[in-house]
Structure formats: C-alpha cells, structure tokens
C-alpha cells in the first residue's frame, strides 16, 4: 500500500526551478534514503512535503493515503501522520519543552479521537520515551531547543517523532552534527519506531547514517529530480565513488 505518492512535482522559488518533475512512491513498511549533493533540492522536497509557506507546487501532485496534500496546511498534514525532523530545529524561547510536548501529544490524540493524557500520566509516558533516547529530565525542563547542543536538538526531534507516532517520517539530515554515540542513539530511536504500517524517508549526504538505519531503497537526487534508485548497495557505491560517476553516467 503506498502511503506517499509524489508525481511529477515541479516547484520554483524566486522563479528558479528547484524541483523538476520529481516522482517518488513510498509504501507502508519501507525505509527510503534520499542522497545527493548540496543544492540538489533535498531540503526543498522536505519543506514541500510538510507544506511550508512558499513551497507550493507549480505542477504535479502529492497524495498521502490517497488524500491530496497540496491544499492542506502544515498542521493538517501533521495530523494525517506526516512528520518532519528538521535539519535545523527551531528555538522557542520561554516555551517549556515538557509543556510543548504535552501540547503536541494531546493535540495529536485529539485528532485521532483518542483520550488525552492528564498531566501526570503524560509525564510518566514522556519519561519512558525520553529514557530510550537518553534524554534526561533536566533537558525537558529547558525551553524548546533553546541552548540545546546539536546532538540534543536532533534527539529532541526524534523524541517528538516517538510521541506523535507518525505514519511517515521525513528525517532531513538528522545525522548532521552528530557524533557516533549520538548517531547510534538517534538511529536506534528511529528503528524502534519502525513497523510494517509506517514508513521513513531519510535525507542525508552521507552513507554513515545508513549503517544504522537500513534503507530498503536508495535514491540519488540531483538538480531537482531523482536520477537513480537502487537498493542499499547504491549508497555504498556512492560512498566509495562519489556522486560524480552517477551524474556523468546520467549525462
């Protein structure tokens, strides 16, 4: 069953074409990796999927569980079960992390028609989830992403992912700025959430992350479209030979 279908997506920013007839299908239970050099349009793709202002399609379509996403606001997309782990998580000064997490958690519950958790029950649940990601209570008392280290920010993204339990998660360069230990923790967190009913799309520069999060399908993106897809070996090939060979082969 496809969760996400992108067909011939075209998108431009300031009259410059960024995505050029990009197509991608992601099925339930799959893990995809999108790799590509800088400026190939990877982050634009993630913003486009999440519905950021200014990232509307010129042409093409995106459907999520057969629902047309193009007209939906970011929160509506989120409520359908689409999650984006930000490359640069945003600081919210004055907003306590715990309160923020409770707010988004209960808002999700409400949309699913499930019972919202009381403050105490939520704290219990949060502690459990946070522990798996080696997130200490102390961090949850701080303001959202405020003064977090690079690694803390990325762990906090995965913590939100774990709380919201999305159907599809797009991880935008979640590995950037992580040391090996943090990379392990974050990857384990993602792997623990993976099941046959959801899907993960990992956007990355490097093969390193794919040692921990095993992709079923690897796509190479260049100049606004996917130029080559293959299995996990494709990532290893890129790691060894760089992108240039694939790019040349295409030209």
């Amino acid at each position, binding site marked *: 069953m496809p969760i996400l279908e992108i067909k011939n997506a075209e998108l431009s920013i300031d009259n410059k074409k960024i995505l050029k007839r990009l197509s991608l299908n992601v099925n339930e239970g799959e893990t995809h990796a999108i790799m590509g050099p800088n400026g190939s349009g990877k982050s634009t793709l993630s913003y486009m999927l999440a519905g950021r*202002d200014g990232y509307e399609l010129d042409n093409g379509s995106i459907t999520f569980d057969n629902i047309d996403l193009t007209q939906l606001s970011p929160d509506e997309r*989120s*409520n359908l079960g689409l999650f984006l782990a930000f490359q640069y998580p*945003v600081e919210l000064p*004055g907003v306590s992390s715990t309160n923020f997490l409770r707010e988004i958690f209960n*808002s999700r519950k409400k949309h699913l028609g499930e019972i919202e958790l009381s403050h105490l029950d939520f704290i219990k649940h949060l502690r459990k989830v946070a522990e798996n990601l080696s997130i200490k209570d102390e961090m949850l008392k701080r303001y959202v992403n405020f003064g977090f280290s690079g690694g803390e920010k990325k762990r906090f993204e995965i913590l939100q992912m774990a709380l919201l339990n999305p159907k599809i998660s797009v991880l935008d360069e979640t590995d950037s700025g992580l040391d090996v230990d943090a990379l392990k923790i974050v990857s384990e967190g993602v792997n623990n959430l993976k099941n046959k009913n959801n899907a993960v799309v990992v956007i990355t520069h490097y093969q390193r992350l794919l040692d921990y999060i095993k992709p079923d399908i690897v796509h190479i993106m260049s100049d606004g479209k996917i130029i080559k897809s293959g299995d996990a070996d494709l990532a290893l090939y890129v790691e060894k030979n760089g992108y240039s060979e694939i790019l040349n082969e295409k030209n």
Partner: protein
Amino acid sequence: MVATTETINQVKTTTDKYKYGFSTEIEVDKAPKGLNEDIIRFISKKKDEPKWMLDWRLEAFKKWKRMEKPNWAKVSFPDIDFQDIYYYAAPKSKKKLNSLDEVDPELLKTYEKLGIPLNEQKMLAGVAVDAVFDSVSVATTFREKLSEVGVIFCPISEAIKNHPDLVKKYIGSVVPVTDNYYTALNSAVFTDGSFVYIPKGVKCPMELSTYFRINEKNTGQFERTLIVVEDEGYVSYLEGCTAPQRDENQLHAAVVELVAMNKSQIKYSTVQNWYPGDEQGKGGIYNFVTKRGKCLGENSKISWTQVETGSSITWKYPSCILMGDNSIGEFYSVAITNNAQQADTGTKMIHIGKNTKSTIISKGISAGKSQNTYRGQVQIQKSAKNARNFTQCDSLLIGDTCSAHTVPYINQHVSNAKVEHEATTSKISEDQLFYCMQRGLDAEQATSIIVNGFCKEVMKELPMEFAVEAQKLIGISLEGSVG
C-alpha cells in the same frame, strides 16, 4: 459604549427634575450629564459621606478645572467632552437573566475558551445562580475569615464612614490630587473602589480579589482603591478578571494608591480585559489609570504585575516611589494590542532611599494595526546611594501593520547607582510558526504558545489560577491575527 436607552431616559427624567432643585433631591438614582459642584455634592450625599470628604472632592474639582489634558502619550482619540459624561449613575445591578441561553453566544464562547466553570460563567454573565454559589455568601465567609486576623477589606465608600482616620491619612498621599488631569478628575468624582488595611505583622491569609468584594456592583468609571500595609504585613491583591467585560462607560479613570511600611510587601496583579471596540476600535473603552505605590518603610517591597489585553486605549503607568532604604519596586507587564487598539503603558521607579532596587520587565505584543508603546522612567535621586535598576523591554510584532515603541527616560543623580536597560524588538518568526504547525498545532495555537513563551517571565509572577486563565486569554486576544 454609549449609555443604554434606559439610562438615557432615566437621566432625561432626572434632568427635568434638576431644574427644580435637583441638588437637594437625593432619592434619584441618576445625575444628569456634565460636571459641576452640584453633581459632586450629589455624589457625596448619595454616599452619605462626611464633610471632609466632600471638601476634598470640591477642592479637587477646583484644581481640575484649571488643569490641561495631557497629550504626551502616543495615543490618538477624538477629544473628550467632559460635560457630555454622566458622573453618577447609581450602582446598577446587572439585568438578571434566567439561563445561559439568554447570554450573548460570543461571550459564552470566550468563557468556554478561558475554561471558566459553568457556575462562574453564569455569575459573570449575570444569570441568577443558586444559593451555593451566591457571591455575597462567599464574600461574607471571606470577610469573616479576614476580620479574624484584623484585615479590613471593604468598599472605599464604607471605609470613609467606618475608618475615616485611615482614609484621611492616606488618600492622596501617594497620588496627589493634582498629579495629573485624570487623578484630579477622579478625586472629584470617584464612585467606589476597594480599601484594604493589613495591620502590623499580619500576612493576609488569602489573595484578595475585587471579585469577592462584598456588595460588588457597578463601581463605575472612576474607581478609587487604597491599600495600606503596616510593618511586616503582606498582601496579594488581584484586580480584574480574564473574562471580557463590557461597560457602558467609555471613559475609565481610576486611581490606585499603595502604601507599604517597614518590611511589608504588597503584590498587586491586574488582568484587564475591557471591551477593545470593534475592528476599527469603535466603541472601545478608554482606560486612563494612575497607579502608584509608595515604599514608605525600610525593606518594603511593592510588585506590580499586569496583563493588559483589553480597552481601545490604555494609558497606564503603575509606579513605585522607593523612599525607605533597601526598598524594592517591581513591574512586570504584558500588554497585548490587536486590531486598532492603542496602548501606552510602562512604569516609573523613583529611587529616594539608599540601596533601593527596582526591576522592570515589560513585554509588548502588537498585532493588527495596533500601536504599543512602553514608556518608563527610572529616577535615581541624590539620596539614593547605591541604587540599582534593571529594565528589560521586549516587543513582539505580529504582521506588518502594527508598531511598537520604547521610550525610556533615565535620570541619574548618583554616581554609584547602577541602571541597566535592555530592549529588543522581534517579529514572530515564520520558522517558529512552521515548526509548531508541523507538530500539528494550528496557527492560533502555535501563535499562542510562542507568545506565551515570550511573556513567560511576567506570567510566572501571576498567582497560579490567574496565570492559567491569563495564558488562555493571550491566545484569545490574538485570534485572527495570523494565518
């Protein structure tokens, strides 16, 4: 808002009577429009005041007539015709409704969003409530508890009669009659307000709230409050209500005076949510308030915390005169303006005593076409050796059509005093909104959460229950400002 037809008609009848010797006729409930000595005599008589009070009012009126309206604030509004205002309409109990079905659904929606319990909703909307929740009985219980410890908490009109020495001693001692145009006006015509007296060494056992003041009726547009705390006493006073309040009086000019003796502490919190008018600001309330506290004793402390979301024009500078050595003044403020609202608010910290300290944290949030100005003065007088002030003014803009201004005045006459001022202006960032919305919060929830974060330092100064409602109120005030 304009006076209701009912009031107009009643006043018309009175006006006719007035021609035939109205000043002696004290049975009538309304005074005609306009202001003159007779009206003041009428108000005073109506309240059964002693002569000294009447004389005080008349003196104030004489001075007021010679004063000029202030025009330095960054607000604009049509000229007020002070002869076109009713200065006395008897405390009118709200029209009793039989059920919530009769209440304006818009109002109910807001109550709901604020999370106000059903019984309280009824009370606020003026629906008859059962005996269990009768506000008077609640108030009576409160009053008994208070009198056990010697705390006086009553309408100021009662205090004038029952505690004349206290009132006489302190009224006008912090805010002189001629402090400004509106204080003189208020002194001449004030209708009612609160009086609080905390005796030596008493920590008031509960938060005092206007909400539970006995005989609470329409206190009118010229409210007068006086709070005196003796040595080592403590009181926390809550004014206002998060629920939206409508009033047929467009002009409000209140005076609040606080007096803190040695080692005493006064915490004064306000949530102001008066009708801001329609989107053009039409019909909204003008709120011209003078609030001032005097730290008369050594080691005394006065804190003002305010959340201002209502009124079409707010002109308000809760201030502290730090006379006693080591005394402390604090001002925490959140002022939100949306649509056509204008707020010019801030504080004055006058350092006179040695080692006096003051802290000012002001958070201004503007949306729509609104204007939001912080105006603050820090004055360190020669005697104020080693005084300290810290000021932080942050402004947050939502959208492109609003504006925020910061106008600090610093007068420092002592070399070893330390005055720090920090100011920031930021726009609510698209990154922050997108981040929150990606997590499933809608634009309004997202704005509310970001703005509440911005106000955090002030909100944490509010008493707990108040803070929870105030947080929701902030969200509601900004509705429609994004998206």
